[in-house]
């Protein structure tokens, strides 16, 4: 294809996005669009899968049968999200095994928040309330993103996420209205998860390398800083309702801007975690890689069995 023809296709492509048309797997798309989407969708899928681990850590110790069932269902939903996000990503011409390989070798990233440990039961509440809350803010705009399979997967993901967030808030509410020990547990969880949740919305706009292009492709509708502000404005009244204190002495309502002002985020900590040196990075990867490697013989068996079955079927056909 000549340079002129490519340019022409690109113009048609950009015009389609500008008209809010969906791009489908078989449509022509610029290579950069494909690559950016593989990166973002797979990163999202990996986050769902790695995100199962910190919560899975409390399934065996959930304090009541009702909570155990709800937590199991939640972690199962995350596996389901991973499944449809991987499928959406595969439509861009990359296999699930390649995607796993990128995760296991550290080439692909996942959300930095899952590299923090879940040390008490209240963390199940804080993750639902704050982490899923931040995720929703990030994800709702993606329901109308330009790539069709991703947008459709996100509609389903978002419905379930908002249920998870309510569930998390309800865990916090029960703790906040419980005994002094329970209230302390809730406050401690908020103290530990607040800042990582703010960091989860990504580096500041000045540091974010992908924002401009992603905005153009509607892979992003608001900048990281706008999303962060929205999250804070939405969450502070909820913390008030719980009677818990957000661990930021600089947090203050600003009449003029109509938003909360907030303190300095420790970006050194963020980059440390992103680069692989957070409190649980090693453990998360060890668990993921371990499960994958220990499962090799099982997956091989399933493949071998399917082949044998197919062969037997063909042998019978031939005999007839």
């Amino acid at each position: 294809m000549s340079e002129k023809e490519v340019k022409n296709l690109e113009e048609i492509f950009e015009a389609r996005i500008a008209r809010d048309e969906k791009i489908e797997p078989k449509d022509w798309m610029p290579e950069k669009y494909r690559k950016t989407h593989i990166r973002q969708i797979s990163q999202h899928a990996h986050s769902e899968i790695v995100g199962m681990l910190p919560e899975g850590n409390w399934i065996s110790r959930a304090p009541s049968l009702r909570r155990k069932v709800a937590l199991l269902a939640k972690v199962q939903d995350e596996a389901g999200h991973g499944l449809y996000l991987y499928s959406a990503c595969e439509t861009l011409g990359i296999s699930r095994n390649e995607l796993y390989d990128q995760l296991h070798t550290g080439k692909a990233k996942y959300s930095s928040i899952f590299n923090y440990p879940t040390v008490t039961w209240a963390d199940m509440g804080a993750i639902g309330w704050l982490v899923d809350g931040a995720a929703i803010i990030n994800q709702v705009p993606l329901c109308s993103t330009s790539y069709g399979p991703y947008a459709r997967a996100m509609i389903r993901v978002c419905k379930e996420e908002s249920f998870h967030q309510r569930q998390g808030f309800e865990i916090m509410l029960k703790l906040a209205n419980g005994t002094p020990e329970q209230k302390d547990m809730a406050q401690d969880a908020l103290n530990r998860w607040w800042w990582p949740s703010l960091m989860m919305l990504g580096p500041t706009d000045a540091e974010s390398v992908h924002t401009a292009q992603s905005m153009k492709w509607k892979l992003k509708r608001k900048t990281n800083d706008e999303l962060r502000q929205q999250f804070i404005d939405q969450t502070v009244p909820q913390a008030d309702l719980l009677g818990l204190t957000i661990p930021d002495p600089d947090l203050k309502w600003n009449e003029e801007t109509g938003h909360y002002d907030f303190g300095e985020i420790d970006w050194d900590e963020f980059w440390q975690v992103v680069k692989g040196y957070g409190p649980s990075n090693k453990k998360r990867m060890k668990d993921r890689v371990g499960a994958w490697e220990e499962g090799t013989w099982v997956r091989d068996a399933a493949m071998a069995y399917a082949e044998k079955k197919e062969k037997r079927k063909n042998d019978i056909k031939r005999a007839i």
Partner: protein
Amino acid sequence: MTNNSTTDTSSLPLGEMSEGQRGNLYNYILGIADNSLILGQRLGELCGHGPSLETDIAGTNISLDLFGQVRSYFQYAAQISSDNDATEDTIAFLRIERQYRNVLLVEQPNTDFGYTIVRQFLFDAYHLLFLRELEKSNDETLAAIAKKSIKEVSYHWRFSSDWIRRLGDGTEESHERVQEAVTDLWMYTDELFHQTEADQAMIAEGIGVETSKLKEIYYKMISEVLEEATLEVPEGKYFHKGGKQGIHSEYMGYILSDMQYMQRTYPNMEW
């Protein structure tokens, strides 16, 4: 289901049951539900660690079904309990080890996917046969729980027996590994058919399932799948028992210390 009893306990309001009848019914329910509780707990330990995303989802799903059943059984047991403060959670979390009535099979560890699937397979066949009989119980609540659970357990059985076929007739390695698990776990199958005093009392009332009648079809059912999977049906004549009397393996204490951790550390709180 045999019903050769003159007293039909199920038609009695709970308040009119004798203490002995209530005690037997209570213990009978625990005998059923504890199997699902401990197996659900074992499967829950694996969540996020499966060999593939699909098996992970399926394993979690089975765990969820089992805990759902446990809740129905324990809510009913709480009504029958002589302890007025009993709830599904006090029954699930606040007994001592000797008071759990599950069979030894379900507490066996998640050694690898082979052991996990074989444990599931050996239990599912029994569970399905058991529920099909419990559905005919004179006790309406138990019959209703059984009816709802049969659908779920039919799926569990399909899942575990399909995997037995895949692993048995898959690769040389998978064949060897799953055969080892079958041979090792076989010794826990006989206990499934043992009867406690409460079981016998409930059978006499037309409430309980006459498990001895299920034994032959059970071994036929699992042997057929094992043979199809090119696996050997073990000839082991020595079996282990004790779980139904509350004498468990050394694994049980660790399962409970994990499961009961919150309730023991923070007593009398709501979650």
